[in-house]
């Protein structure tokens, strides 16, 4: 049973944090905006991966396929079709969702752990194929035309309103989009898991046979989650590369940047818990700042923490916190139906 008083306070904190973060471009420095932008995009990727691996049992090591195709979709929209980058984000998301159909068709044949390799190979195939797309620079990649981000829809107005340079206004716009995407992804994930379908998904995770016997179709539900998380990941990929402004197949499909980091963030924070990725991204960012001067050591430490969490506390930091304090943010349990007398 969820204690209302206990869960009300954390919710107030969460709302305050979101408002404070929304004010960063107005009050904070530009470096801070850019830093937090990366944090927020990693959070979006982690929320999507958590939904896949933590709730649908689909351990994908190929999410970089959707980040990359999202980025390339956005670049194609801007460079080849002359659209506004903001439309490009939507096109990137749709491209990722379309791509997820053949990938799901192929990888869903593979059992359990081999699904992971299947997704990875799929991502490699997409990377190697896009490296052949000469109009977008082939293997060496391409940049957004100069001034694209400065003339994005809304940037000139923001520039006047905030009284900053065009590039700072563009940073603010992408930052707010990232914040909105993160909040929407988190809430959508919560509502989905609280829904009938989400209940079915958790039932499959806990006991596939029992779930099937009461009419839950595992393949359909998992395919739906795969499709939707591909869309979210693609949107995020497109948004990321508006800020980065240069795309190469290796950067857009980087397994370390878009999948390894995301896996560690989720695992450390608490896989299969909704606030887990949020906690994970804070730990990740703190570590990154503290160990910035040590290069690879930082990745080694991240890997070791990930291993330790899996060995000793499988629900991550958030799981430990919930077990110790009983505080639940975004609880997923349902009240048991009252028995008829």
């Amino acid at each position, binding site marked *: 049973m969820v204690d209302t008083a206990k869960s009300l306070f954390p919710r107030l904190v969460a709302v305050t944090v979101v408002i404070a973060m929304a004010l960063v471009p107005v009050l904070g420095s530009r470096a801070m905006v850019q830093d937090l932008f990366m944090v927020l995009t990693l959070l979006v990727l982690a929320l999507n991966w958590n939904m896949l*691996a933590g709730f649908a*049992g689909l*351990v994908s*090591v190929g999410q970089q396929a959707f980040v990359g195709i999202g980025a390339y979709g956005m670049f194609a929209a801007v460079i080849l079709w002359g659209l506004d980058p903001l439309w490009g984000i939507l096109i990137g998301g749709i491209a990722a969702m379309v791509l997820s159909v053949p990938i799901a068709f*192929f990888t869903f*044949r*593979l*059992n*359990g*752990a*081999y699904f*992971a*390799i*299947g997704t*990875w*190979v799929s991502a*490699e*195939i997409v990377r*190697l*194929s896009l*490296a*052949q797309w000469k109009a977008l620079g082939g*293997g060496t990649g391409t940049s957004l035309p100069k001034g694209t981000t400065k003339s994005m829809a809304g940037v000139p107005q923001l520039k006047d309103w905030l009284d900053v340079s065009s590039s700072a206004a563009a940073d603010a716009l992408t930052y707010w989009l990232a914040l909105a995407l993160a909040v929407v992804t988190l809430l959508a994930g919560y509502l989905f898991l609280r829904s009938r379908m989400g209940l079915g998904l958790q039932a499959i995770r806990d006991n596939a046979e029992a779930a099937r016997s009461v009419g839950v179709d595992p393949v359909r539900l998992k395919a739906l989650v795969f499709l939707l998380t591909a869309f979210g990941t693609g949107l995020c990929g497109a948004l990321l590369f508006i800020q980065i402004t240069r795309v190469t197949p290796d950067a857009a499909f980087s*397994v*370390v940047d878009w999948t*390894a980091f995301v*896996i*560690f963030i989720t*695992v450390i924070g608490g*896989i299969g818990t909704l606030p887990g990725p949020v906690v994970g991204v804070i730990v990740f960012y703190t570590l990154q700042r503290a160990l910035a001067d040590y290069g*690879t*050591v930082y*990745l*080694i430490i*991240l*890997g*070791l923490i*990930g*291993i330790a969490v*899996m*060995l000793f506390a*499988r629900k991550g930091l958030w799981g430990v916190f919930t077990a110790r304090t009983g505080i639940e943010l975004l609880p997923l349990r349902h009240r048991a139906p009252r028995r008829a007398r």
Partner: protein
Amino acid sequence: MIWIDTIVQGVLLGGLYALFAAGLSLVFGIMRLVNLAHGDLIVLAAFVILTIAGALGLSPFVAAVLAAPVMFAAGWLLQSYVLNRVLGDDILPPLLVTFGLSVVIQNGLLEGFSADSRKLSAGPIEAASLSLGPVTVGVMPLLTLVSAVAVIIALNQLFYRTRLGRAFRATSDDPVTAGLMGIRPRNVFAVATGIAMVVTTIAALYLGIRANFDPTIGPARLIYAFEAVIIGGLGSLWGTLAGGIVIGVAQALGAAINPEWQILSGHLAFVTVLLLRPRGLFPRAND
């Protein structure tokens, strides 16, 4: 004529991929463990051979013989103290632990050996070649394929002719019943991973002599190895050899058409085989 030559080179390359894959196939067959760090363990073994060969001034072949027990011990310890703890019905923990391990090994090697490309130097044998009828083949690639076949014969003998092999098969079929018969599954798993690491050392020897290597190339080797295992059919060692050869020939043919297509055509061959035969060419295990 050029096509025959290309296919023969592809088959020889497939021998190397089969060596990458044999250790993975062995571990999966016995404990259903998917080791995402396998590629990085191959690279680690290559650096161990390099270090021993450099320190003692030995040929890489002799150094590999010395490296094998070191890698066996590493595998035994890894399985006993880490991987045995996460085996179970849930596939998530072993996947994530081996993924973490992969990142740790890769960056540990970067820290210790820098990102420079290295090579194991085997002397004049590297350039030697043989004329076999219409085609000429390098002695080293041929030796790689012969070693792959030898490793697979040896593993099959171990599996079907020895007491240890019987324990492997029994544990693979039903760990609980095997436990009742006095076999300790965890010890069996530790020995199996140790043996897989010895096979990995052999793979690393040929990887290091054939081409340059650096700490970051592990994941790509892992993908080729997995493709070979899955194409061959899970749990079948001869299938793994066949899978390696399919990938090798596909890559050689792709490269002959356009050098940029080498890796892509290997992946596409993998996808095609899986679409036609979802359980691989020679499926054995029912899973």
